[in-house]
């Protein structure tokens, strides 16, 4: 009797241990528990129920409204919907955000980064793949809440104003879609835990598509967040040059070169500026430096073209040409 009881106890202990192995911990639990509030839900986020296949415009309208720009989802159909695909492309959602002078920040592909955005008050537009294997089922939804204790995620999705799904189910569909997630940031603000390269890509995308004012505010925010980085200074200088503010451009290129003496792009652009300022000799010195730095790099062709233009210019420097910045100590 006693032996039997002991055996059954041991058996239940073994079963319990096995269960312990089989059950996973909460999927949403952050690596550093202090980093995130255990639950958050952006209940104020509006809801735009989708029509047939038009989850792209609906999800886009949701994240735009959360950033303070209310556009009816129907108006966005003409901007992002592809009738022949019965869907919307990721790049076009990004484009539609740019068209409103807002910054489309693509979130790093981790659950933690996604939840951080929600905790910081920004709903996250996500791509999901609901179909398995070769079956499609691409779908856009918006994450507006999470609960790390219950391991659940809250979505605005399709025709569901508040869809609560298990973290396992959500993460599986998000994973199949390449973990693509996007937040809309008002230029001048920063996303939660910003990644420098992703942020600068988004800001420079605004500049490249003609949204100069928005790009300028985004670069200025970047100079405050990453004061030692050269790229935001280069961006501000390029914008100044484009609007004819040559003195501002010189200041900006110089600031970029001070931060990164080996930056061929900043030196190339400063050389072009020096030529515009009537300083061909100073321009020659700067472009020679750029050419040495750009050798076999991505800017080699652009720098060579600038050098040809500068070497075609003759004559002495005008009065008041700016002094040379410190040379590149990291020259190869």
């Amino acid at each position, binding site marked *: 009797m006693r032996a039997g009881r002991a055996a059954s106890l041991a058996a239940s202990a073994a079963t319990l241990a096995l269960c312990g192995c089989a059950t996973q911990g909460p999927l949403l639990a952050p690596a550093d528990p202090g980093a995130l509030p255990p639950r958050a839900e952006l209940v104020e986020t509006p809801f735009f129920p989708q029509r047939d296949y038009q989850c792209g415009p609906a999800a886009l309208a949701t994240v735009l409204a959360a950033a303070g720009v209310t556009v009816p989802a129907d108006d966005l159909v003409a901007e992002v919907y592809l009738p022949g695909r019965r869907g919307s492309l990721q790049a076009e959602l990004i484009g539609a955000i740019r068209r409103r002078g807002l910054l489309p920040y693509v979130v790093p592909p981790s659950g933690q980064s996604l939840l951080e955005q929600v905790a910081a008050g920004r709903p996250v537009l996500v791509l999901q793949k609901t179909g398995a294997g070769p079956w499609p089922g691409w779908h856009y939804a918006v994450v507006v809440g999470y609960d790390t204790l219950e391991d659940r995620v809250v979505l605005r999705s399709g025709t569901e104003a508040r869809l609560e799904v298990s973290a396992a189910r959500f993460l599986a569909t998000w994973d199949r879609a390449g973990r693509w997630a996007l937040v809309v940031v008002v230029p001048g603000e920063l996303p939660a835990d910003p990644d420098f390269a992703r942020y600068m890509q988004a800001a420079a995308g605004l500049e490249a*598509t003609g949204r100069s004012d928005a790009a300028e505010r985004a670069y200025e925010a970047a100079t405050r967040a990453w004061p030692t980085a050269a790229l935001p200074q280069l961006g501000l200088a390029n914008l100044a040059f484009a609007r004819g503010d040559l003195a501002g451009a010189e200041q900006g290129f110089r600031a970029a070169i001070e931060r990164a003496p080996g930056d061929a792009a900043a030196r190339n652009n400063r050389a072009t500026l020096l030529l515009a300022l009537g300083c061909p000799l100073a321009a020659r010195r700067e472009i020679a430096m750029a050419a040495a730095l750009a050798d076999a790099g991505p800017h080699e062709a652009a720098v060579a073209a600038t050098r040809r233009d500068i070497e075609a210019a003759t004559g002495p420097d005008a009065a008041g040409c700016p002094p040379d910045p410190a040379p590149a100590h990291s020259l190869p």
Partner: protein
Amino acid sequence: MFKRMVVQLLCIALLNLGSPLVAQAGLIGTLQAVEADTRAQDLATVNATLARDQVREQFMALGVEPAEVESRLAALTDSELRMLAGQVAEAPAGADALAVIGIVFLVLLILEAVGVIDIFKKFP
């Protein structure tokens, strides 16, 4: 004659409205500098103008309103256009197309496997 010229000029001007800022000669754009820092340069070998033309054609073929095509293209960067060129028809397009066909197929397969129906004659 004069009217015609004006109309033609206006057409060209309108077409240009859609294109983003023309890059200033001698300047390396901020986006180029960012992308040089962050990604492989193999994309840059595709001509951006060519890519834009390809995506324009594909948008038209997929039923985008002609009046909207240029402004939609103008919102995309050169590298996005290069990535899209040639694959607008395959790139993921969020649609909420529930895999209905997939579900029907699965149900049929299960029914077949448990012997309720017998329609897949070619399979043992």
